[in-house]
Every structure is written in C-alpha cells, then in structure tokens.
C-alpha cells in the first residue's frame, strides 16, 4: 500500500500518473473514452500497473480531475431540473446580468437557461435583507409547486429564494416538502450551496449544482465500482476548482465545487513545486492544443477568485466582457485563459496583418503537418518550420508528421503575401501567439497589481515549455521552470493536493461599529463547522488547519477584496489589512476616516496527510535516446543556428542556449543567450539573465 495514482481527464487525452514509495514517477497518456470516461481510467491504470510493476492492491488512494461536470454544462446534458424561486423572480436565472460578452455583434446568442421557464416556479413568500420575514411562506403554494415539477418529471430541484442567506427558514421548509413528496430526489438549497448575497450568482450556482449533480453522481458511482472491481480499494478523491481535494461522496453532494478541476490541478502542482524548490512567487503557464491558462502563486499561496463562468473562460481580449457561459460563484483558482494553443490557426486579415487564433484546428484535423486535411497553417506548423519541433514525429515518435507540408503552408498562405521568408513568417506567428498568451499572464499579474518581473514562470502542458522562455523574456521575467513530466503535469499536481473544506457566509457589518466579540463568534462558528466536516472524513484535530478570511470594501464601493485574518484579530486589524491590500492592488487607499465594511466571512479547512504527499525527489524513467542537432531559427538577428537536441538528463551540467530538450510528452526550447540546467529535483531551470527583449 504505498503507491498513489492520479487521473486527469481532458477532452483528447486522459493523463495517468503514479508515484511510488521512493518517488518513482510513472506516467501514461491514453485517449479519453468519450461518453464513458471511466473506462479509459480503469484500462489505462491496468496498463500502467503492468508497465510499472505494481499491483492494484498497492494503491492507497486515487485522485481525480474530470471534465464530466463542465461537459454536462457546456453540452447541455445535465439533469432535467426544476427551480423554485420567490414569486415574481423566476426569470432572474434567465435575465442574468443583461450583459453580453461581445460588442457590436448582431448575431450574439445568450447561453440557453439550464432550467426552461416552464420548470421555474415562483412561490409566495418574502424575506428581507435583515432576515425578517415580510410574507410568510405559502405552504400550500410551495407544495403545489413541488408537485407540479414532479409531474413534469424533473430529476432534481433547485431552490433559491431572495435573501435566504439572511434567513433560510423558507428554503429549508421547501427542502423538507421536497423530501416528503419525493424522498431521494436531489434537492439543492441555495443556502447550502452558496449562502451569500446576490441573487443571480446564487441562483445560477444552485441551479448548476442541481443540473450536474445526477450526472456526476452516476459517473462517480460507476467509476467507484469499476475501480473496486479492478482491485483498487483506496478512497477516490476529486479535485475542486479551488485546488483542494474532496471525497467522491462529498463531490456528489456539492458537484458545483469540482467543475473546473483539471486546470486547478496544474496550478496546485506548480505551487507544490514552488514550495519544494523555494520559489515564493511564480506564475503557472499551461498551454495545450487549444487554450493557454495562467495562474499565480504569490508568497507560496495560490491566488483565488470568487467566481467564474463555465464556457466563458476564454478571454476575447478583455476580462471586462462578461456574460458568456454559466456563472458559478464558488471558491476557485484565479485562472486567465486565452484561445491559443498548438492548433491555433495563422491567417492574414483584410488589412494585411498576420493573426493567430483564436480559431483552432483542434486535435482533428489538427495542424497541416498531421496530414489530415487542414490546409491553413497553425502554431504547431510554425514551430515545425522553425525547427523547434521534431521534423519527423511528435509524442515520442507515435505521431508522424510532414514538415514539408508545414513549410509549404506557411510559405504560401503567410510568408508570400507578407513579403517575408517562411522562417520569418513562422517566427512572427510564434511571437504573435506568445503576445496573445502574454495577455493571460498580464491578466493574473499586472492587471491584478502584481509586477510579473518578480515572478518565475512555471511552464507545462504539451506546448508551454516551447513558448515559456520567449514570453518570460518579453515580460522581463528572469527564470523559467519546466518540471519533469511537464506534458502530464496537471495529473502530477493532483498528487500534491490536500483535502479542503471551504465555507462562507454573507455577513455585512461596518468595522468601526463592530463588537470584536461578535466577529470572533461568527468566525469561530464557521471554523467549528469546517473542523467538524474534516473530522467526519477521519482527520484527527491535530491534522486540521483552518484559515479565516473576510471580504471587505469601502462603504459604497461595489467591489470587494479578500483579507486573511487570525483568531483574535479584531475589526480594526481587518480594516487595516484591507487598506493595505487596496493600496497594493490599486495603488491607492482612502483616508483613515473612510468607513470599511465586511461583506462576507470565509474559512478554508485543510486536512493534512500523516506523511508528506509527495516525495522530495521525483524519479521519472530514463528518457529516449538523444537526437542529432538540427538548425532552428531565432529571428532575423540570430538567424538559423545549429541547435543541439538533448534529453533532460543532459542538462546535469548547465548549457547555453540554443538548445532543444525533447521528451515523450513535450518539447522545451532554450533560446540563445539563456542558460539551462537541472536542479536537484529534476526541473529544468532556464535562466534568462538581466536581458529584456
């Protein structure tokens, strides 16, 4: 019992990673089994066990990140869901915020409401923001609404009443009526899912919880069974969007917490790496075939966001344009995403300027060099022309490519119209793709008041290490870290996570009039609940850590900032912490007389393992045989340079760029002028020196 395994399901591939007692790292990439995602996991693990030489019985726990929940939302394949609201407000879900994510677009279509109007029913009742009941719940009306939804054959019911965060009595009563009329039917009460102010966000989040619950429940039930049948006895834990793990049973109850589990795992992996190698400030950069994502680790902590949209994650140039996708207000890692990947298409616009993405050739037909019918060059084709990628095959030889086709496409479609050579055009496309992705990095750094120059770039995903050094140079960052098994790094990140419980409640109080005892009482109550939940999962008190936080704002402001605090910290400490955070984020703070208001309280409880989750040193299997050097192009000034193609181990002694490190699941580029070396943990450290391009 000493291996731990993780499975990260993506749209194209399912990545599997196992870590043994001595830090043995074994990875496996298998095609995702769409429709029955669990099959790929169980079969892939079976192969991994054989290759790695250990038995299923030796696995102590299975950690999992999945796109099942987000796919159910994006493909509208969730449960038939009913919604009960306060009378007069059943359209809050559909009206949303009125905003649209695109300007000047006559063809804009709103995302379809996950609950159609005829399954949204209002019930007579009214609670005020103070929690006072203005109109008592119409019991008969509530009963009739539940019966009407049951008659429609709903598989789940969501309940979201106005101001239920301040007084949940009516929601609870409707919950009881549902339990009475339809025992066993999944019901989500907004006070259980998100006891916070703002009716649209709360309704949307509660509805999503109901909508994906039955789907995720069935999936996890089947997966659990399959794993047990395959001899895996250990618990199944899921990654939450916040980067913490939660038991499968808990995830089935609060599915809304695991929607964005895959991307979160990568950032947690970067955080674990940062802690291990003593890197307090890092930006994680994850680039695959269609999207690139950036997250931030600051002072070893992962930056969190309070909400995001499923299907709205890809920025269209600016994060201001909200309204796409489905709104979720759950603790989640602050990620910025752009539509840029290896498959992004390169084209020339009507005014003769080269453009890269966001349209993508995807995995199929994929880049021109795949020879599957796409004629428009992609970022991967540019990288082939530049000599950065192996000209004969990718994925460790498993995917043969046609480099001449890449060059012909770049030459014909891009270089000739622009009056450039093919390599100049390819290099330009590479830089433009990088500049698009730089916007994702800025979105989590400079746009959040953080100077990226004080951060290292941790690059992973199939294409991340190819672009990282160039992007870091452009941003004035000095160091790039490429971890082992960078191509399956999100699955590695799963193995580094702790079990987490997140709780929050709306709690509006002005700090200058607040009794410290009242603050302590409210925070302590939340903390006690977090401890109780972790205790119920088997964590003894000494292995439970709880952090408190509050969101605050200047009275009258409509945007909040989160500030952590410790037991015993009074309102004045919170107000000062807020002022400092405001200054750091926005560059200014109001005068000391300006009243500060607490909006909500949060706690995060962590259940710590009884021994380190990850060994200090990871030992990936020895890599393939080294390749001959090949010419690679580095822009007009440097031109074509004969570039050695190395295995990771060859960096045991520092090497000057240019160099290419080719691995099974990714390729890393060390540009001229940079120095690359391995650290004690098998990471490639690229040192960019003082220069800034």
């Amino acid at each position, binding site marked *: 019992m000493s291996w731990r395994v993780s499975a990260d399901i993506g749209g194209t591939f399912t990545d599997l990673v196992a870590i043994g007692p001595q830090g043995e790292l074994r990875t496996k990439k298998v095609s995702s089994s769409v429709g029955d995602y669990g099959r790929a996991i169980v079969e892939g693990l079976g192969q991994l066990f054989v290759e790695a030489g250990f038995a299923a019985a030796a696995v102590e726990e299975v950690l999992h990140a999945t796109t099942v929940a987000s796919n159910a939302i994006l493909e509208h394949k969730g449960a038939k869901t009913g919604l009960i609201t306060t009378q007069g407000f059943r359209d809050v879900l559909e*009206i949303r915020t009125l*905003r649209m994510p695109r300007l000047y677009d006559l063809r804009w*279509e709103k995302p379809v409401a996950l609950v*159609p109007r005829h399954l949204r029913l209002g019930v007579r009742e009214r609670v005020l923001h103070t929690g006072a009941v203005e109109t008592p719940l119409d019991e008969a009306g509530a009963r009739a609404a539940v019966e009407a939804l049951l008659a429609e054959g709903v598989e789940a019911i969501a309940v979201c009443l106005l101001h239920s965060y301040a007084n949940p009595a009516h929601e609870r009563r409707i919950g009881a009526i549902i339990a009475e009329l339809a025992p066993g039917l999944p019901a989500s009460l907004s006070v259980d899912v998100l006891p916070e102010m703002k009716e649209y966000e709360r309704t949307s989040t509660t509805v999503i919880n109901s909508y994906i619950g039955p789907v995720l429940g069935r999936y996890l039930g089947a997966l659990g069974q399959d794993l047990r049948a395959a001899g895996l006895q250990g618990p199944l834990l899921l990654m939450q969007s916040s980067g913490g793990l939660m038991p499968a049973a808990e995830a089935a109850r609060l599915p809304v917490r695991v929607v964005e589990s895959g991307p979160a795992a990568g950032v947690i992996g970067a955080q674990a790496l940062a802690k291990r190698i003593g890197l307090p400030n890092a930006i994680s950069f994850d680039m695959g075939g269609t999207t690139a994502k950036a997250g931030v680790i600051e002072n070893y902590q992962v930056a969190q966001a309070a909400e995001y949209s499923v299907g709205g994650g890809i920025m269209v140039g600016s994060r*201001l344009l909200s309204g796409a996708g489905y709104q979720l207000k759950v603790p989640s890692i602050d990620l910025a995403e752009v539509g840029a990947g290896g498959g992004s298409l390169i084209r020339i616009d009507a005014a003769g300027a080269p*453009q890269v993405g966001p349209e993508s050739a995807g995995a199929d037909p994929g880049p021109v060099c795949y020879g599957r019918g796409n004629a428009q060059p992609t970022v991967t084709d540019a990288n082939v022309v530049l000599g950065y990628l192996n000209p004969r095959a990718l994925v460790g030889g498993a995917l043969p490519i046609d480099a001449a086709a890449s060059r012909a496409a770049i030459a014909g479609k891009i270089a000739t119209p622009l009056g450039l050579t093919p390599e100049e055009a390819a290099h330009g496309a590479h830089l433009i793709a990088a500049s698009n992705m730089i916007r994702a990095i800025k979105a989590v750094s400079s746009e959040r008041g953080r100077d990226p120059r004080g951060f290292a770039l941790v690059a992973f995903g199939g294409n991340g290490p190819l672009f990282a050094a160039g992007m870091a140079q452009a941003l004035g960052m000095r160091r790039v870290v490429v971890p082992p098994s960078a191509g399956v790094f999100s699955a590695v990140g799963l193995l580094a996570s702790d079990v987490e419980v997140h709780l929050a409640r709306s709690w509006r109080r002005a700090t200058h009039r607040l009794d410290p005892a009242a603050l302590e009482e409210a925070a302590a109550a939340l903390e006690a609940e977090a401890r109780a939940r972790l205790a119920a999962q088997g964590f003894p008190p000494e292995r439970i850590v709880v952090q408190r936080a509050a969101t605050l704002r200047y009275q009258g*402001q409509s945007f909040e900032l989160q500030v952590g605090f410790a037991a015993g910290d009074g309102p004045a400490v919170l107000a000062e912490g807020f002022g400092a955070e405001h200054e750091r984020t926005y560059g*200014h703070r109001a005068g000391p007389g300006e009243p500060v208001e607490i909006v909500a309280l949060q706690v995060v409880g962590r259940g710590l393992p009884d021994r380190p989750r990850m060994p200090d040193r990871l030992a990936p299997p020895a890599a393939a045989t080294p390749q001959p050097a090949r010419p690679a192009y580095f822009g007009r000034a440097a031109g074509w340079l004969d570039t050695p193609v190395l295995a990771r181990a060859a960096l045991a002694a520092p090497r000057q760029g240019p160099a290419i490190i080719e691995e099974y699941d990714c390729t890393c580029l060390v540009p001229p002028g940079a120095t690359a070396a391995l650290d004690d943990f098998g990471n490639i450290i690229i040192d960019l020196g003082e220069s800034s391009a």
Partner: protein
Amino acid sequence: MQGRSYDPIEFELFKNALFSIADEMALTIHRTTYSAVLKDNMDYSTAFCDAAGRLVAQGLTLPSHLGSIPEALAAVMRRYGEEMAEGDIFVLNDPFEGGMHLPDIFLFQPIFVNGERVAIAATICHHTDVGGRVPGSNASDSTEIYQEGLRIPPLRLYERGKPNETLHMMIDRNVRVPVKVFGDLRAQLAACTIAERAFKELVARYGVAETRFYMNELLDYAERLTRAALRALPDGEWSFEDHIDDDGVEIGKPIPLRVRVEKRGDRMVVDWTGTSPQVKGAINNTFSYTRSAAYCGIRSILPANIPNNEGYFRAIEVIAPAGTIAHGVLPAACAARGLTGFRMVDTLFGALAMMLPEQVGAAGDGGNLGVSLGGWTKERQPFIYVDFTCSAWGGRPWGDGLDGNSHMFANMASPSIEVTEAEQPIQITEYEFLLDTMGAGQWRGGAPFAREYKFLEAEAVLQVRADRREFLPFGLQGGQPGAPSMNWLLRDGRREKLPSKFCITLKHGDVFRLEVPGGGGWGDPLLRDPALVLRDVRNGLVSVAAARRDHGVVVEGRAVDEAATEWLRAEMRAARTAPLPAVVRERAA
C-alpha cells in the same frame, strides 16, 4: 510612412500591447470605482491617444462613447495645446465644449517621455451626481443646461502634479454625494497612472520614433480594414424614419428622427438632415454622441476585428445640422440624451436593414429606460438610486430577438436586487418577463420584463425616462411591432397610469412599476415554426389566445393541434388583402 520600414510582425505585437493598456485602464476603473453606474453598468470608457490627440486605441467598454473622445480632447487641445506640462491632468464635462452630458466627466493625462509629449491617456466616467435640480443629474424634463448641474469647461484638475484646490472645492460644494464623485475621480486618476506606467515601458522597448510610427500605422490599419469591408457591401442610398414619442415637456408632440445612409465604394455617409430641431426637454444630443451612434451602428455590420480608433472613423462621414436634436446648441438640455442616442442607433439599423436585409433585424426595446430615485433620509443623509435597464432585442432574419439582454449601444448590467435592498430604501417586488408583449413574427421579438420598486423612506423624487409608448418597436418583413412601454404607480391600493417621462414625489409604501417595451418581430408570423410557438406558450410568454390570433397556431393542452393549425393558417392567409409590409409600425388589433 515617414521613411520607416513597416514590419508586420512588430506592428501586430505593438497593437496587442497598446490595446492591452487601454483594457488595463478599463479594468482599473472597474475595480476601484465606488458607484454602481460604473461597476455594474460600466458606463465609462478608457482610451489612448497620440500626441496630436488622435484616438489610437479605445478600451472595450461602452459603445456609446466611441466617438466622444476626439471631440473632448480637441476642446482641451484648443485651449492648452502647447502649454501642456508633465503632471497636468485636464477635466471637462461641458457638452458645449467637448462633453456629452454633465454626468460624464472626462479626464485627460498627457504622457511625456524625456520632456516630449508622446501620448494622452483618456477616461470618461458617468458620475452618480453632478448637482442640478434632480438627484442623479439626469432629469429628462429640464429645459436648459443651467438646470442640469455643474458645468466644467476644459480645466486643469492637476497642474504639474499639484491639485487645483479651487476646482476641487467647487466640485465638492456642487454635487450631492462628493464621497462617491471623488472616489470615482480617483478611479479615473488611477487608470491614467496605470496607463502612463505601461506606456513608458512600451516606449522604453520601441523608442519614441518607432512608437509614434506604429501609433500612426494603427490608425491607417483600422482605416484599411474598414474600407476593405465597406467595398464588399452594396452601393446605394437608404433612408429610414422613426419617432420619439415626445420630449417629456411638450407632451404628445412626436419628434422625428430621419436618417439617410449612403454607401459608395469604400466610404459611407450617415446623414441626419431632416431630423427634428432641438427640443425643450433634456434629450438633445451633442454631435459627438450622434457620431457615436453612427459608429456603433456601422461597426455592427462590419467584421469584428477592426480596432476601435479614429482610423475606423475616417471612412464614415456623419452629418447632423447644428440646432437639431442630433446636434444641440446652447442652451439645449441634454442630461437624458441617452434616449435619443439609442433611438438613433435603432433608426440607423432600420436603414441598414433595408441595405442588408439578411443581416439586420427588427427594432428592440429602444434602449435603456432610466429610473432615478433620490432624496434624504430621516438622518438627512442623501440617497440616490439610478437604474438604467432594458431587455428586448428585435427578431432577426435567422432567429428570435434576445430576451433579457442589453441594447447594443450600451452594454449595461442589472444591479443585484439583494444588494439594492440592503443599500437603498427600496424593495424590488417583481422582476419578470411579461406575457404577450413580443412582436409576433417568423422570428419573434425579444421578451421585455416588468420591474417594480417599492419605496420605503418618507419621501423621494422619482424621475423616469421611458419611450416607445406611442411609436412602437417596429417589425420587419411582416413581423409585428412589440408592445408599448408602460409606467404605473401603485398607491394606497390603487393603480394609476403614468406618462412615459415624468418626475413625481413618492411617499412611503408607493410602488412604481416599469414595463419595458417588447421587441419587434421579423418575418411573417404565420411562418413561425409551431413548435416554437408551443415552447413560448409552455413558458408562459405567449397566451393560447395570442398563439392563435398572431401565429395561427392552435395549442391544445401541451401540444399543437396540427390539423387545426394548418386550417387556421390557410384561412388567415386567405383573409389577407395586401402583401405584408416591409416595415410594420402598428400592432394588429
């Protein structure tokens, strides 16, 4: 090109960097603002101009500000041109010298590199209050600019880094909520600071000469894209007319909006000659706002990738004679000119629908309806609640109009009900779609909603600006118009109809009910897929009776009676005496 060689790759990288600065400015305001108008409605814009004041990059925020920056900056340049010094920050809101309406305060910061002015950062924010006779400073029934609030000509808010105390004090004493106004001015300043820092980094990388060269090239690039797109459109002339019900002062006197669109080769003319003379009520546009409306409308029929800058404007000529509602002159009141701007966009869309019938749909709800409520609490604290809301798009040649979506001209958001109730003496008692209010059509108009506000303090002034009571959102190609807007006062158990624009005193317990107009339909209602009619009936948006009357669809229980529907539709077609009109302005009885 000033003898420099143009590198397409460098240009693309520069463009990304510069627009990222304009967006970063916008984010800064979003995060630091105090007021819901800015945070939720995003009624603000940020931009970057070259040293000559030409708009090079506008952040993606509010379309209705698109044409306003050049005008405002030109006013500043006229007065201060070569006197600008490092550390100066200029401010203005005077509609007759660069502004749009008084609540929109412009801030400009010239950016110097080695003593040379290289660029100018610009921000506009709609402020919660700038004084005047009504809280929120946006009354539609003011008749002169002098009633509308504090008028600020182009002045220095900061001179060489030092605040202009005189001006600060004047603002402080003339607005109802100075904490919010100064909080939001600080947000504007923060955005300029961010812009200066980021721009200087850009110049450090490219050098001054190259930066100037690429800023100029960015304008030419937008112009090339625009002209290339225009060349692909049909040449010709198209005209359209619509009316605003009235100006809220001369009740019942319709206000004509007339537009002529001319497209030849790679240029376009939008001509408002023939539009109403300026009116007494506060709905007169500045010429800059009329230009914004034209830029927004034309932009919507062009490809999405054209940068927001002055190069795009070069291909479009906008004509609006001075002294008209499209180009007000002193002493025109203009606080509520948003109404006219929205309706000009819709009128322009009417002409564009004639030009491109497959691309442009029927009229939506006419843009946002303004509800302002303000007064003093028992503790003599001011409260101001401003809600701009809209919902329904017109039916489109390929699909239904959107339900519950902002108008194209101003991508506004709805403030949270729960937050409103916690912060204002207001309870929202309903927020739901309305039955049988969408214009019927093969593709129906979008659904409007009702929003009810119950007032909980002792006394307040309620000021409302709605329209489309008399002149309905038009349908196209036989599609029916949407239902009119409606205002109701529920007081002491009675229900009283209010005019579309009014200003009254509310008492404790009064409920104001706002009903947004419905979107116009597109195409013959008898061609609508019966399954879509059934869906709307099931969803409570269309009654069984209206399904029958408007679409000839017979709904029995949960299903369409196919045979009866076919029979009824045949009968309705036979009863038609004339072909369906291209533009439908009156609802069938």
